[in-house]
């Protein structure tokens, strides 16, 4: 039988050192705020989201994943001029979902990482738009084409980025 997912006993749980756990999200936030000024196309990427997904699937702990997503999302919110919590809610859900999925799936190979990021990017954008339109009252349009393209770009970026971040993983 061809097993497409691993059992709980087979999966490996990773952890990160404290500097890495704090530094990686901060560097992601910094680059996200800084690089679009010099490279305008970069605002299509969402580095904090990619870091959230990476940390969540590596730790494979839903509680840890949702808290990671929540903190990173709230920090990202605080750099915008909008009420704090829109990115927080979206990334909390993504962190929880990614870590829950990481428990069940093998997310070590590039193909699964690509699909994982592609899917979670769309989930993230949908939650963001729902909250922004429904709660904050923003007049945001559904741009499906843009969203699909951005999801593809983020998924493509995630493959090399995750390979770099793999170096910071420690066996738990």
């Amino acid at each position, binding site marked *: 039988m061809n097993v497409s997912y691993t059992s709980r006993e087979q999966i490996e749980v990773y952890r990160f050192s404290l500097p890495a756990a704090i530094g990686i999200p901060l560097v992601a936030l*910094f680059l996200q705020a800084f690089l679009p000024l010099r490279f305008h196309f970069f605002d299509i990427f969402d580095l904090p989201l990619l870091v959230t997904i990476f940390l969540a699937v590596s730790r494979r702990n839903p509680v840890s994943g949702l808290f990671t997503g929540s903190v990173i999302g709230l920090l990202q919110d605080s*750099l915008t001029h909008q009420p704090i919590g829109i990115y927080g809610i979206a990334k909390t859900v993504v962190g929880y979902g990614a870590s829950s999925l990481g428990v069940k799936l093998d997310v070590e190979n590039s193909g699964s990482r690509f699909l994982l990021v592609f899917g979670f990017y769309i989930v993230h954008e949908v939650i963001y738009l729902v909250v922004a339109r429904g709660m904050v009252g923003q007049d945001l349009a559904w741009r499906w084409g843009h969203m699909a393209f951005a999801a593809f770009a983020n998924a493509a970026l995630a493959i090399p980025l995750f390979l770099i971040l793999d170096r910071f993983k420690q066996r738990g």
Partner: protein
Amino acid sequence: MENLLARHRNVTILVAVLFAEVVGLAVQVKRTADTNSSRLIRVWTVTAVTPLEKAFVATQRSLGDIWHSYFYLRGVRAQNRELQDEIEQLRLQQVRLAEDAGQARRLQRLLGFKEQFIAKTLAAQVIGSSGSDMSRVVYIDKGAGDGVKQDMAVITAEGVVGKVLRIFPTSSQVLLINDPSSGVGAILEKSRLQGVIRGTPNGELVLEKMMSDERVEVGDKLLTSGGDQIFPKGLTIGEVKSVSPGRDVFLNVRVKPAAQLSRLEEVLIITQVVERQPTQQEAQSAMRAVDILAARLPSVPERTGQPSTGIPLPMGVKPAVPKATEVKPGSGAKPPASGIAAQNGLAPRPRPKPAGTGAAQLTDEGVKVQGVKPKAANGAPAATQGVGASGASAGVPATVVPRKPRPKPATGAAAPGASNANQNPPKPGRGDANSGAAGSTPPAPKVVPPPQPKPPAGTEQSPPPSTPPPETPQP
């Protein structure tokens, strides 16, 4: 119940966290006026991120300066020549514009308008952005410690950028005009139609509140109207990119911003705007284009004893009083105008004199053609004609060709300010340059008597006779 929560512990925590975030968000949305409800977390994040950004920007700038200043100097000479030419062109353009501005100020002063002046600006470096295309804000490296306050306008040399939204100790958050929550009062430069510029979710600018029967054309320039009380009036916003029918009765007008909002590096914060009326001096201080042009033309050296030099002087610079305007007791000539009253044209104006020669006279108003036929000295082209006349007729002795002697006023200024046609509307029969420029009665040429020996000291200051005899040409 406890068993249920323990079994679904992860989901319970997720729901609890989401609930907390939703409540927090709802509280912020409700307190829209209170921007400090989430200040602490913003200050923490910005304080953590901006030092890194500042360091990166400073390093990048230093490296760029070293490269561009010491290594990459290819084509600098050619560029320098081009820039010099451009400066020359811009100087002429500036003088022309200054003349128009001076005229506008005079009109404003007459009508009691108050004008907004940008009194102080503060240069700042853009160090970061929100990192999200849902929130179009940038961070600058000037904060509360530098005197930045909320709602200050932020501009570049090209146009409007945005306004200061939040202030931190060493940095500030600037809301760009292409954010959907932004709005700028705008006016079309040509048609003077007013509207509101807003951002769209995809970062474009649209001009709202334009009725479909209004005439808006592609390429029309948009300026700030000053109605939003943030941006001073007259700053460039951009130009109309496309016009199409929109919803209801409004047009869908897309605008291309003048400032490159996606490539901002340095900006100016308007820290002080002064609202005042233009002063008398400002209204008079404009240098005319004719003066600059005339200064570049070759001129004949002055001959001793000639009534005019032919060397134009810029407005505001008092030339030596030509002998033709010196007071000669009994000659009917008037004393030269002096003081503010004379400069402003508040002093009585002289009556036109009989026809003179082709000599040019230097006055406070620049070059004035004298002695030519009314056709030549007439009208708005006084400036250009003056230039030509000054160069061509310099040094030509003034010979008088009497045409139609007219009685002179009791007192008058020999050289009234040219720029006061708006303050003292020209009366028919007055032959100053302004009346001609305004397109009214053509001025009669003045008499420029030939040089006379100076009268004894003291007689120059004597007032002219109250009823001077009609001006007659001197032999």
